[in-house]
């Protein structure tokens, strides 16, 4: 009898360790997302100071948007090669081919995710930057976890506990404290094109939020490392076969010159390569976190990019952030701890399904 209860206790301990390890890995992947996303802003911004982008006047909006489309396409191609290397090392290249080929039922979701995260979110973010300002763009993007969590909840019943929701709100509030005060200097009531910026802000929040939920649908039955590779493959196709050719055909924008100018400038390509290295592994970590802690939690921790972006920019430009950065930092760290303090067992089962009523928690509770 004593032996039986001792082995039961050992088993219960092993179960808790197992769930806690999965939860820790999920949050670690999400934290890597935030770190690499923050790091991405340094080469991503530096690229605008290289030819052919540096020569574009600030008020040439359509040319700036065309340049954005070109750099996003070249960036996606570079990300693709980093992911190819990653999957070669992991031995998942064959699985990538097998998943891509099941387009009608599986990889179409990655194609849709790439539309949400690429043309919709990135384009929207640049609209917000161009027509209102970068601070507004950063703040509107902070709301994407709310959109992601709501879609994941309504679409496939992802569980968001009260503690996770509170943590998410604290992180968003922290991000607003970091960027909010600068917003007052940016808003201009006399700007007749501001509505385009607001639409852009909404597009970026909906685009990034829905990307997680849409990709999660395909990741139910496929591997996250493979999934992100599929997503970037489709993004290359959307920009390279639809959007850029359409811009070339129907506008006078110098798309060809921008493409050639980017590929032939070694400094521009160096920044794109560095940005792509950050983004490839940022997105890999992002997708890996979804399958372990869910879309809502993964995206909320990913929101810490607001903090890391300022830290990296300060490190490279030696421009210290304002004092309120510390207040925002405290809130975002606090929010992360609130989320991480959820019991590991509750994160082990991410969805509410009657069919899976026989959950891990019940199993753990049944043990002596």
């Amino acid at each position, binding site marked *: 009898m004593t032996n039986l209860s001792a082995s039961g206790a050992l088993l219960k301990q092993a179960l808790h360790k197992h769930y806690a390890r999965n939860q820790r890995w999920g949050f670690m992947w999400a934290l890597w997302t935030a770190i690499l996303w923050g790091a991405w802003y340094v080469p991503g911004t530096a690229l605008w100071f290289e030819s052919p982008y540096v020569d574009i006047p600030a008020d040439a909006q359509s040319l700036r948007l065309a340049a954005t489309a070109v750099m996003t396409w070249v960036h996606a191609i570079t990300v693709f090669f980093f992911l190819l290397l990653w999957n070669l090392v992991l031995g998942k290249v064959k699985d990538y081919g097998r998943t891509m080929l099941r387009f009608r039922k599986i990889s179409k979701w990655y194609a849709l995710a790439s539309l949400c995260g690429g043309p919709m979110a990135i384009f929207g973010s640049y609209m917000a930057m161009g027509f209102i300002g970068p601070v507004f763009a950063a703040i509107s993007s902070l709301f994407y976890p709310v959109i992601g969590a709501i879609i994941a909840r309504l679409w496939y019943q992802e569980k968001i506990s009260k503690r996770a929701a509170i943590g998410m709100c604290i992180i968003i509030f922290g991000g607003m404290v970091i960027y909010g005060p600068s917003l007052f200097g940016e808003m201009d009531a006399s700007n007749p094109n501001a509505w385009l910026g607001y639409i852009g802000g909404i597009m970026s929040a909906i685009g990034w939020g829905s990307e997680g939920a849409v990709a999660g649908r395909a990741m139910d*039955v496929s591997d996250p490392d493979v999934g992100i590779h599929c997503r970037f493959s489709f993004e290359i196709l959307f920009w390279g076969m639809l959007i850029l050719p359409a811009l070339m055909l129907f506008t006078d924008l110098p798309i060809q010159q921008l493409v050639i100018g980017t590929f032939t400038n070694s400094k521009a390509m160096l920044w794109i390569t560095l940005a792509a290295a950050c983004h490839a592994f940022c997105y890999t970590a992002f997708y890996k976190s979804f399958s372990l802690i869910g879309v809502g939690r993964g995206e909320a921790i990913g929101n810490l990019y607001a903090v890391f972006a300022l830290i990296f920019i300060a490190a490279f430009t030696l421009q210290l952030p304002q004092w309120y950065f510390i207040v925002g930092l405290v809130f975002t760290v606090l929010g992360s701890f609130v989320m991480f303090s959820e019991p590991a067992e509750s994160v082990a089962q991410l969805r509410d399904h009657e069919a899976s009523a026989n959950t891990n928690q019940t199993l753990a509770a049944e043990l002596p």
Partner: protein
Amino acid sequence: MKLHQKGFLLVALSQVTNLWEQALIAQTFVEYGLAGAYSEKTLRIALDELSAAGLITRIDQKLAQHQGQQQLQFRYQLSDFGRLRMIDTGLLAG
């Protein structure tokens, strides 16, 4: 063409009432010509992901000796939601 590995794990589970993960991993090793601790860990992570998403459920667990170490092993069963998702994604005929 072979199925992708997560798809194979689901199909294998759909063909039986339930299965211990060691047996499931052994089947996958044979199907894809895999071997070694790395591939085994990758498959265990895939099973954790499927379980977290609610496609499969853990109906039993045990501590077993494996390669000289005590290891937590689970017995898995396809859930009704998993069956539905398999039909949605063309892994199972409706």
